[in-house]
């Protein structure tokens, strides 16, 4: 049906077949993000906005390449890619030990790579691949969960050592969503959730670092320390709240321009935006995200086989996780945590992760289009 419809149109087929329902919101969002970064940079392209656009351009090319990958090659490369990223994580740990103190990235000349970011899509890929190969009959047995659990646990362990709680939770989230969608028995998840809630106090008192504990206490009682750990979230809420419905106007944000808002260009870019563009800007951003995620789920639903479906759903969930945690945090509904907002925050690593996820989704979307109607092939 696709080929027929497209041939009859005026628009050339290679352009018409692109997923514009996602690309247009994505470009709008990134441009808007650039605008906000322009303001956060003191009303100038440097230092944030320009590199934001450049990065988007570079990663768009990467996305196009990923989108063009054939399915068999991806199936073949999944585990080696996963292993490579795992080794990079290990290398971070070793370099960190040697260099003294913790670090989260590796440097290759001018490029600085944060392997934990790469791990997010890699885990989703590996999990999708694993459940694709797992015979349907084994779902529900220990063999359906143990290897997959290892696939998640290994990178999480390494990331936790860095230590980076936020990223480990993000990796776990992507992995668990794939497990959930793979059809593992519901009661496993319910009982795991119950055990998790029961273990929360233990984790709080024994597993968390002091600064993490401070974030949690601050989240539960922001007034306890208005000038200390609670300062960030308090200032962020002031920025968002003072924006009102239409905002203070482009380049007129005082919270960001006078340095009251910490990290106005990365973690708190949404607050910077909301201060200047108000509720309308916020709703626009939320709408763009909704369109992109909706497209992601559509791709997953139209997927022709188990691997593509799980891959698309996991990638969408990973993007969602970034958005949700960041927005919950800047609005004072989650503990402060170093998670940037996709396509708006200034920063290469998160842009790369999210663009990889988009690339994977576009790749699945292309497979969907090329393959015959589903049903026979698996």
């Amino acid at each position: 049906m696709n080929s027929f419809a497209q041939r009859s149109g005026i628009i050339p087929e290679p352009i018409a077949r692109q997923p514009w329902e996602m690309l247009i919101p994505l470009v709008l969002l990134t441009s808007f993000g650039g605008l906000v970064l322009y303001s956060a940079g003191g009303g100038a392209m440097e230092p944030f906005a320009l590199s934001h656009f450049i990065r988007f351009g570079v990663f768009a090319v990467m996305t196009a390449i990923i989108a063009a990958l054939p399915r068999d090659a991806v199936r073949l490369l999944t585990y080696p890619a996963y292993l490579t990223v795992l080794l990079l994580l290990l290398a971070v740990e070793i370099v960190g030990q040697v260099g003294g103190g913790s670090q989260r990235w590796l440097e290759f000349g001018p490029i600085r790579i944060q392997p934990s970011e790469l791990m997010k899509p890699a885990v989703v890929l590996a999990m999708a691949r694993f459940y694709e190969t797992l015979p349907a009959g084994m779902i529900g047995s220990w063999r359906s969960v143990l290897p997959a659990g290892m696939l998640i646990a290994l990178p999480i362990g390494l990331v936790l050592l860095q230590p980076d709680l936020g990223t480990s939770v993000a990796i776990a989230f992507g992995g668990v969503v794939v497990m959930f969608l793979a059809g593992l028995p519901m009661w496993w998840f319910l009982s795991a959730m119950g055990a998790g809630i029961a273990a929360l106090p233990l984790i709080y008192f024994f597993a968390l670092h002091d600064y993490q504990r401070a974030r949690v206490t601050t989240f539960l009682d922001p007034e306890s320390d208005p000038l200390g750990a609670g300062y960030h979230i308090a200032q962020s809420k002031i920025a968002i709240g003072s924006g009102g419905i239409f905002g203070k106007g482009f380049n007129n944000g005082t919270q960001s321009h006078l340095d009251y808002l910490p990290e106005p260009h990365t973690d708190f870019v949404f607050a910077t935006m909301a201060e200047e563009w108000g509720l309308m800007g916020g709703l626009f951003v939320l709408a763009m995200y909704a369109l992109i995620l909706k497209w992601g789920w559509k791709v997953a639903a139209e997927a022709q086989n188990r691997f593509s479906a799980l891959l698309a759903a996991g990638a969408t969930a990973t993007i969602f996780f970034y958005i949700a945690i960041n927005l919950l945090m800047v609005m004072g509904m989650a503990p402060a945590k170093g998670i940037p907002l996709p396509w708006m925050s200034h920063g290469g690593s998160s842009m790369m992760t999210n663009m990889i996820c988009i690339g994977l989704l576009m790749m699945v979307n292309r497979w969907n289009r090329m393959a015959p109607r589903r049903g026979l092939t698996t």
Partner: protein
Amino acid sequence: MKIPFLQRGPHKPAKMVNASLLRSSFERRAVLIGAVQGGVGVLLALRLGYLSVAENEKYRLESESNRVNLTLIPPRRGWILDRDGAPLASNRADFRVDLIPERLVDAEATIDRLGELLALEPARIADIKDKVAVARGFQPVEVASGLAYEDFAALSVRLPELPGVVPQRGFSRFYPTGCSVGHLIGYVGPASSEEYEKDPNPLLITPGYKIGKDGLEKQFEMDLRGVPGARRVEVTAGGRIVRDLETREDVQGQPIKLTIDGPLQDYAARRIGLESGSVVVMDCRTGDLLCMASMPSFDPNSFSDGIGGVEYAMLRDDERVPLRNKVLKGLYPPGSTVKPMVSMALMQAGVDPDETVNCGGGLRVGNRVFGCWNRGGHGAVNMAKAIYQSCDVYFYSMAQRIGMQPIADMARRCGMGQEFPLPVTSQFFGTVPDPAWKMKKWGREWQTFDTVNATIGQGYMLSSPLQLAVMASRIATGNHVMPRLTLDTKPKGFNDIDFPLEQVQYVRKAMSDVVNGPGTAGRARLPIPDVLIAGKTGTAQVVSLSISNGKSGPWKYRDHGLFIFFAPYDNPRYAGAVVIEHGGGSGAAYPIARDVMTFLFDPAKGLEALSALEAGWGGTAQQRLEARYAAYAAERGASVSRPPRREEEIFDRVEAEARRAATQSDAIAGEVIAPRPEANPSGTPPGAPAAPASAPAASTAPSPAPPAPPAETAR
């Protein structure tokens, strides 16, 4: 749904799970996750709306209070003016530097660096370190004020490396006549934490803002304070000022107009010279206090800059108590200066002034003999002669006739033992003893010899120089003159006649004869034709005769010298009192009164006399104070103890010392007083005015009784 953990073994229903089942499970669960995500999205949108619409007002305010920093501009303090509008306390624009202890990163290093940049003395640096160590966070500590522009600029460019250092342009209090007005005006200083707790006005903790700490500065604080201005600036979170938004100018405080005659105050303070004492001059027609000089004093300029440890130690260790305002808090036995007042009491009681008493050099009262200062006796003495010759026997005898009560009542009526409605922080009211007082205080009956002692101003009787001056003006005018210190208060007491005119004229004449006739103070004559001064000498014994003869020996055992006066004698315009502590007798007091009155009638002549004296003393009072400070600091600058943390402590202590000093005379109250020689008939003084050029400010005595008077006394 099956409950899998109830089923044991491998025989699980594997056949139930197949690809299509997984597919449908995927779809159902995908919808579930999608719904959860949609829910989160709706939650976020609602939260966003809540923050930016419902709570918009609150957060907009918070954002504004972040952005805008309100800085108080300390108001310029009102001036304190003398009766002719000349400033006794004014403001001087200056550059200053403060420290905010809370913001200091490395206090020691920062202060040392500041000391280097501003070339501060080591003692000053030590003071600043002490103050920073005890300061509460909010309280700024002054480092230096009155800086040269070059120093200020040099410091300003180094600010980034000196956190907690606040340089600013401002105004500092300036007292043009320095130590001459120290006790009268007081001084200013940064508010202490107690004062801030009492009056939590943010102005008080503004760096560089000072409030009145003593004297009139404290008394008129609210009038002098003014209204602070405000500067609204946009600041970054780091405190950097982005731009000025708006500025409201400060409103200068109200000026206070005093009745004080500035030049006279300065003259009198300087004329006291090396002595320790006070001069009070009043205008008899209005009650205006023209001069309330108390010396030695402190320099309110340096007190206002924050007194240093060395300077404080010097003032504290001085036995002449430069921290005590002797006009109000010095209490002295008035000695023979009470005799005109007692004479008034006698006349009121019906004693005929022409009645004579034969003075044979002493009078037996009970089993004791009370001597007259003139052991040879005065012969037949009427009231006038008793005043100008200061005959003690006349008063012993007459006072016994009328008893103590009328005399005590008259003393109170003349102002002794009274507090006056003046805007001063505290005044001592001394003692006017009477039988009821003695019974209450000591639990003993009044004795005849108590009356005898009281009539010559000894025993329990104590009064302050201010009271003596009021007494002089009441006797001189016959009116119940009330002193006033500010021009906006009404003169009082002038329709209140205390004494009939003929009695007043009689006493005026007798007191004129003290100076201009055959009296005890011939040297007090004014070098001005047609103006005759009237007065009464007094010499107050301080310790028992067995300890000291009052003329020589340790300074603190020597007699006080007193003199009350008014001029012109027949139509009094000015009245006053001079009290010289341990001056060795009234001879120390009346030359000062003479010169002060000379200055009032003929300033050129007065200054001529003063410059001759100051040449011998080693400069003006201010110059001598500075020289002494330099010498003291050089001698033991390093080893002095810290000054009290609070200014209040200084003055509590001074007050306590003053009270203790005032009780000194209780010790000899029960003894027979041997009145000290007063006579100076025709200008031959009994003791040298204790301050010729040869005598430095040491506590060892100048020669006790040099019979050869210096040239200035020849008249």
